[in-house]
């Protein structure tokens, strides 16, 4: 009944009547209709979680928790609203909680000045070339919140307002993190980009 049409998951609900129907069906107790939403959004949701926690198992668990949480509270979901931003916000918040928990465990604060200390590149796409690896390493070397915001902007292609909604930061703070990240990334990737001219 609810066949997944594509993996394009940034279309508003209005542009995807199947999504709208699936949400209505889930609200009226048809849990099976939720499969459509899971199929449509899971890849993006796992990718967002992985980009933050950088661990495939944790990302899978976080995606599962996010979808279950969304299902449990779907009655509060406003009709006509797109499902994507909602599930992205849930998974981002869950992933940020994991990061905070890790930091607390290490008796540190999420810092704007200290570099992030993850290095799990095991699940980078197999086709990732040297350029991709350099970019990934440069993003991962950023301080925690700059890293997360930069990844959401550069890799996941979210806009400032979307990142602000997902991370509970103001749009100004998002822009500030991105500005700082841009300066550092330009410096660290200078050899790759300074030679190219548009």
């Amino acid at each position: 009944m609810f066949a997944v049409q594509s993996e394009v998951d940034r279309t508003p609900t209005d542009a995807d009547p199947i999504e709208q129907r699936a949400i209505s069906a889930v609200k009226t107790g048809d849990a099976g209709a939720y499969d459509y939403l899971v199929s449509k959004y899971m890849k993006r949701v796992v990718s967002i979680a992985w980009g933050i926690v950088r661990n495939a198992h944790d990302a899978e668990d976080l995606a599962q928790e996010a979808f279950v949480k969304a299902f449990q509270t779907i009655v509060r979901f406003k009709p006509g609203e797109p499902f994507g931003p909602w599930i992205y916000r849930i998974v981002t918040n869950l992933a940020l909680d994991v990061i905070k928990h890790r930091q607390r465990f290490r008796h540190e604060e999420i810092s704007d000045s200290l570099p992030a200390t993850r290095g799990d590149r095991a699940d980078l796409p197999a086709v990732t070339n040297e350029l991709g690896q350099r970019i990934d390493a440069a993003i991962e070397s950023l301080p925690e919140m700059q890293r997360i915001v930069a990844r959401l902007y550069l890799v996941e292609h979210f806009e400032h307002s979307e990142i602000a909604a997902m991370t509970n930061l103001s749009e100004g703070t998002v822009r500030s993190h991105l500005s700082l990240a841009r300066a550092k990334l330009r410096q660290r990737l200078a050899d790759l980009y300074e030679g190219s001219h548009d």
Partner: protein
Amino acid sequence: MTEDKFFEKLREDSAPLRFQPRDSALWTRLPVRIRERIHHQPSVSQMLARWYRPITVSFVALSIVAALSVTWLEHTRESSYAAEAMGSNSVEITVDGNTFNLAE
């Protein structure tokens, strides 16, 4: 290259860095896990059982402890009564016509 152009170019080059699991079974496993979780939402009776079961177990444990305590107290009290009775009553032993009183 301007800052903005650099960042837009970097954004283009970063798009392929999205997560791709080494274990592609994840994409079939995850929906199954989610389906299992949401199709097994606890019913009202299960919710009540979840609350009542530990409370019932606690009450049973308390009852057993109370019963054992009362039994032990009764037993202790009886023992002390017997000792008191022995202490307050004199015991007389007669040997070869001579009577000895142990209480004296």
